[in-house]
């Protein structure tokens, strides 16, 4: 006979059995039995956030920087609805997360009880899967399944909604076994015939490019290693999406930088002109492709993705390989080596010559300012002064996020946490909290915007409480800069509601929270101020006053193609954006 535990104990026991060390949460009536169990044990540390959205982003930061599953615990009703943004964010960016929500007792469900919400109904479209536990006998199995579903295949968030009576009820507990789920069995190994076909395309490529994404990071460090080996072996150029930064070292000369809407000139032109595109773990997102009918028009496309629904969703490909990036890369490498493939050296040399021509355009160059701090300069200096430390970067959403992606340089995976798919302002501070919990000794910096940080600023209090020395580096341009930029380009410079009016004094705000505030207003004082930030043992809010009207370039305007990029020194800004383009986001 299995051991009998109550529901709350089953939850805690299963968390322990899945190796959970930290959970991010916020209490309330419908989860009190679970909180009571947390109180009575020591192996799992609970991090009390200040808003349930913060718990979800913290869990995302924790997951993305460790490769482990992030765990969230919130109460019913408003606790669950507050978690919806982070669940959606995790779904879009394929982040493994288990979110436990309290629910009103079973017999009250459906009666509009106090703090009742149809949590499984609300979260059905924003989770990979969800469960309402109606029988204590199912709880242990569901907890184990939740971890399996969240962490395997294409990772994602899973909600387990547990009514309060179930948390008190007695039931059996059995250990997680390698139970084979009846219907859920993601495919890890790629089809060998397709892999051989891919290698043949690669072998005959004249203008190849690797286009990689977050799938490499999700697959684990081994995928990055294999990718590096393969890229080196072929001598091909490589670019990556926002989500994939760090899977290939940016210091390497085969690295072209990020591609897409704010990607580099060389990466986007190489994508446009390539004859063989090797997409590994990316999903042809609209930020990447630009207008589809002009996307890499003369290319054969290989697509490796663990999610079969990503294949041919936006872009039709020539060779589709469903499988885990590391597994497929391993097989590809093996075939490549055993076929003794030698790339067409001559073709490759002239391809690189073309690429160097684009690189010479120096698309990330910007006009320096002797006195004021340019936002690009601020990120460059931040990079120079932190690159030798054990650094993790999170961001908010906006221009600063793109400047961080362009000017901060990543050599390793799991060092870069950003909200890509959903573009959630307010992601950065709680994500930094989560990263710092996982890496207490590391330097964790949120490259932020003054508007975004105000969405989840309260999490600085969490950082103070748990002595998490996160650094919030605000590129304060007094605008919702990215909105202002689009208004400048597309709406005649009518800056409707995009000025950051009535800003708090961030230095005083930091002090009010018990953190340290630092401000830099001139280029001359920037380095010293950054050094002070790094040397401060506790959390810091750094108010970096930057030039206000800077635009983020390069840029592919909506509705345009990769070879129609705007550069900082493009003549004026009177670009033609089609009406169809204007309607895009």
């Amino acid at each position, binding site marked *: 006979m299995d051991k009998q535990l109550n529901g709350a104990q089953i939850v805690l026991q299963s968390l322990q059995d899945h190796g959970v060390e930290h959970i991010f949460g916020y209490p309330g009536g419908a989860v009190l039995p679970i909180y009571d169990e947390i109180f009575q044990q020591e192996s799992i540390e609970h991090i009390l956030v200040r808003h349930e959205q913060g718990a979800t982003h913290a869990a995302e930061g924790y997951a993305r920087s460790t490769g482990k599953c992030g765990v969230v615990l919130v109460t019913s009703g408003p606790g669950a609805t507050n978690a919806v943004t982070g669940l959606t964010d995790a779904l879009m960016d394929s982040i493994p997360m288990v979110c436990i929500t309290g629910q009103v007792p079973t017999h009250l469900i459906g009666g509009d009880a106090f703090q009742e919400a149809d949590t*499984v*109904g609300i979260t*059905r*479209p924003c989770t*990979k*899967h*969800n469960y*309402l536990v*109606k029988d204590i006998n199912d709880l242990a199995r569901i907890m184990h399944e939740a971890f399996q*579903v969240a962490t395997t295949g294409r990772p994602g968030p899973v909600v387990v909604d547990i009514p309060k009576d179930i948390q008190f009820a007695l039931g059996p507990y059995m250990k997680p076994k390698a139970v084979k*789920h*009846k*219907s*859920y069995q993601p495919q890890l190994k790629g089809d060998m015939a397709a892999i051989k076909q891919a290698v043949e395309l690669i072998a005959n490529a004249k203008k190849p490019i690797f286009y990689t994404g977050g799938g490499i990071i999700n697959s684990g460090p081994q995928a990055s290693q294999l990718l590096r080996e393969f890229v080196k072996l072929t001598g091909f150029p490589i670019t990556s999406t926002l989500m994939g930064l760090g899977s290939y070292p940016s210091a390497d000369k085969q690295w072209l930088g990020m591609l897409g809407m704010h990607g580099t000139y060389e990466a986007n032109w190489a994508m446009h002109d390539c004859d063989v595109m090797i997409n590994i773990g990316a999903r042809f997102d609209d930020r990447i492709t630009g207008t589809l009918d002009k996307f890499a028009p003369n290319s054969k496309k290989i697509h490796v993705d663990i*999610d*079969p*629904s990503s*294949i*041919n*969703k936006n872009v*039709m490909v020539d060779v589709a390989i469903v499988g885990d990036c590391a597994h497929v890369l391993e097989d590809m490498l093996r075939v490549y080596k055993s076929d003794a493939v030698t790339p067409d050296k001559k073709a490759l040399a002239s391809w690189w010559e073309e690429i160097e021509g684009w690189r010479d355009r120096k698309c990330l160059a910007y006009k320096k300012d002797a006195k004021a701090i340019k936002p690009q300069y601020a990120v460059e200096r931040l990079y120079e002064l932190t690159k030798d430390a054990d650094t993790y970067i999170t961001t908010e959403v906006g221009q600063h996020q793109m400047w961080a992606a362009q000017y901060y340089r990543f050599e390793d995976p799991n060092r870069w946490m950003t909200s890509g798919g959903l573009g959630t302002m307010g992601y950065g501070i709680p994500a930094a909290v989560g990263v710092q919990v996982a890496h207490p000794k590391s330097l964790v910096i949120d490259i932020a915007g003054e508007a975004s940080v105000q969405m989840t600023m309260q999490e600085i209090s969490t950082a103070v409480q748990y002595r998490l020395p996160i650094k919030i580096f605000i590129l304060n341009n007094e605008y919702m800069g990215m909105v202002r930029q689009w208004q400048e380009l597309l709406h005649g410079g009518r800056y409707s509601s995009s000025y950051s009016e009535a800003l708090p004094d961030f230095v005083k705000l930091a002090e009010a929270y018990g953190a340290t505030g630092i401000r830099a207003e001139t280029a001359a004082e920037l380095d010293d101020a950054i050094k002070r930030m790094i040397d401060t043992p506790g959390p810091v809010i750094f108010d970096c006053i930057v030039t206000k009207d800077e635009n983020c370039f390069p840029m592919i305007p909506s509705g345009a193609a990769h070879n129609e990029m705007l550069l900082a020194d493009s003549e004026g800004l009177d670009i033609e954006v089609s009406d169809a383009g204007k309607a895009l986001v």
Partner: protein
Amino acid sequence: MSAENQIERHTLSVLVDNEAGVLARVIGLFSGRGYNIDSLTVAEVDDQEHMSRITIVTLGTPPMIEQIKAQLGRLVPVHRVVDLTVECESVERELALVKVAGKGDARVEALRMSEAFRARVVDATPDSFVFEITGNTEKIDAFIGLMKPLGLREVSRTGAAAISRGPEAM
């Protein structure tokens, strides 16, 4: 128009765990991603394994149908998805209950037509019939069309149930 963007009608058969919310997942997927549902039929088909079979008739271009299949396959409780329109020979049946009210010649004509269509009378009053008819969707459409001028009052249809021909199971 190329075959790529020709709208086609496909019948998908989806084997799922019969658990709470599974139908909501399937329907939510269709509405959330803007796919069409022409008809949808669901019932438990294996009470030992608690499996249900959902038959969905949908409209879309071939790439859209492929995408629908892949999205359905991604749902955790979904065991299998088969496109009965392209992957095998199949039979498709729908049941309809058709109420027709009328007197005199119209009533006689309705009854005569029902015999031609092998519909059954399952309810009769001096001035109405309820016919039960099974067949493929076109046959039922045709029958209902014929009943319109003969006093058609209301229709209840099940939507299509479909299965592959031959000895193989999905």
